[in-house]
């Protein structure tokens, strides 16, 4: 069997590594069904207070002030879209770094890193499994929100929204790789992930339009990939715009993705070599 695997073409072998990593992570997730149910349903409870707050403050489902800033006064779909896209941040940003830390805790990181394959493909497998689980959770949250709050989503928006989500995921992969690299070297990456999560939560337009922030904070927010993803997806779903109407935001998102991915891969390879040399890979 092992010999057979070696005889395969490099591309097939690498794809096999990605597939095996994906299957392993999904099996690990399936071993905890309560966690699946939790992530599929409970993030909705985190944004329900914002919807109730809206009802108390404006007395209906539309806000004139919101309409002036964003072009649409409907704050419920605004909040739902923000929360669903932000769930990718929660799972991808923390997931990748934590996934590597988990291997260290379980004592399997050494074996993974000495496996005769390019480690980048192991990371791609981890990233794909995180994206798959994030997408399942996001679709579930969106479906429940559509039923609960009566949101209208047409089939025509699915393809462009899916395209933007892929771009968002790529940017988050880049950030997650940087965090994974830091977690290899400095171990306690949790605080760093949490701090980045805080920055995203405040400076990105997850709960409110970015225009509500002071100018300096808006500039900072525009360096974060989810800011563009939220602006584009809300324009498509709430204002009925197509991708050509928001092409500048799409280009900005692609540029940020490229920078983050390059920095992520470079940092991870560098840190991996460094920790191998220092012999601290499985320390935790």
């Amino acid at each position, binding site marked *: 069997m092992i010999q057979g695997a070696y005889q395969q073409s490099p591309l097939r072998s690498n794809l096999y590594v990605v597939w095996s990593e994906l299957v392993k992570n999904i099996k690990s997730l399936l071993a905890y069904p309560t966690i699946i149910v939790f992530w599929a349903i409970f993030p909705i*409870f985190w944004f329900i*207070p*914002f919807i109730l707050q809206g009802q*108390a403050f404006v007395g209906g489902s539309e806000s004139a002030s919101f309409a002036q800033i964003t072009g649409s006064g409907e704050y419920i779909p605004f909040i739902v879209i923000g929360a669903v896209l932000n769930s990718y941040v929660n799972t991808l940003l923390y997931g990748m770094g934590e996934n590597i830390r988990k291997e260290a805790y379980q004592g399997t990181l050494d074996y993974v890193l000495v496996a005769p394959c390019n480690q980048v493909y192991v990371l791609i497998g981890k990233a794909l499994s995180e994206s798959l689980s994030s997408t399942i959770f996001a679709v579930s949250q969106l479906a429940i929100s559509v039923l609960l709050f009566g949101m209208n989503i047409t089939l025509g928006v699915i393809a462009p929204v899916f395209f933007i989500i892929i771009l968002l995921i790529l940017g988050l992969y880049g950030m997650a790789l940087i965090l994974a690299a830091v977690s290899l070297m400095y171990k306690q990456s949790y*605080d760093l992930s949490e701090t980045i999560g805080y920055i995203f939560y405040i400076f990105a337009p997850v709960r409110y339009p970015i225009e*509500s922030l002071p100018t300096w904070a808006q500039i900072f927010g525009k360096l974060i990939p989810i800011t563009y993803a939220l602006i584009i997806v809300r324009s498509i779903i709430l204002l009925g715009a197509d991708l050509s109407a928001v092409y500048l935001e799409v280009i900005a998102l692609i540029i940020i993705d490229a920078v983050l991915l390059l920095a992520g891969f470079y940092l991870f390879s560098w840190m991996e070599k460094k920790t191998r040399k220092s012999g601290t890979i499985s320390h935790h």
Partner: protein
Amino acid sequence: MNKSNKEHRLREVNCPTGFNWSNLKAELKAVWQANIKDWKIEFAYPVSFIRQLISPLVFLLPFLIYGLALVGGEYSENLAQLVGNGDVVAFIFTGYMLMGFIGTAVWAMGFSIRRERWFGTLEAIYVTPTSRLGQVLGMALHSTVHQIVGTLIQLIVVYLTFGLALKIEGVLPALGIFALMMLALYGFGIVISAVGLILKEGWVVSDSLYSIMMILSPVAYPLIVLPTVAQQASALFPTAPALVGIRSFLIENYRAEAFGNVFLHLLILGAAWILFGILVFKLTDKYVRKRGMLTKF
């Protein structure tokens, strides 16, 4: 040192029993030491310490900015119609200020035992001649003080950035309500820590309970916007009456949405949650010991 070795060992493991002043003093000392231990651990990780201090502010800001964006200013006509005062900043701040303490009960207290299990120190703590509840209360004391410091930071930043109009003369009765609420929340926290003893993935239960309590508590909206069933359910948790009571004392012209005598309501809830918490904790403790599940995770 005239005593034999056997006698000396027996003296060392002589556990205090019965309710008397010297035992109570010993228990309070154990509670204090558990609190000090947690502060020492916290100061060993300064980045984590600072992050946790500013986290109450980080979670308050989205509620505030969103509220201001919704009404396009600091005054909401609709809120004024519902509760008599439309000051968005004062309403959200007074609500969110208390929410942090639910986190104290659910996370810090509820997970104190779980954390000791992760560190591998739970068995050592369990064999010390002190009450298990004393350990939990020590950790609760630490997290309450921690949360108070975080709330003060919130207060200063919100006051300087958005301006905050609160009635100073209402601070004392508000603190009384706060103390009664904390008593009931401690009971709730003890229940959660019992859950942490049994369930491997206890954080799922804690987070779910926290989310439900967050919705049932009128943090960023008056209770009246909730469906009737939810309004009735909110009376079982201390945060809803406490928030209504505190706002009545701190916000000018505030019209309480529900609840009669808040002090009496909280006193009953406090006694009920504490008794229920102790009962659940004792039963769980016994069950876990019998099954040998103490260090499993």
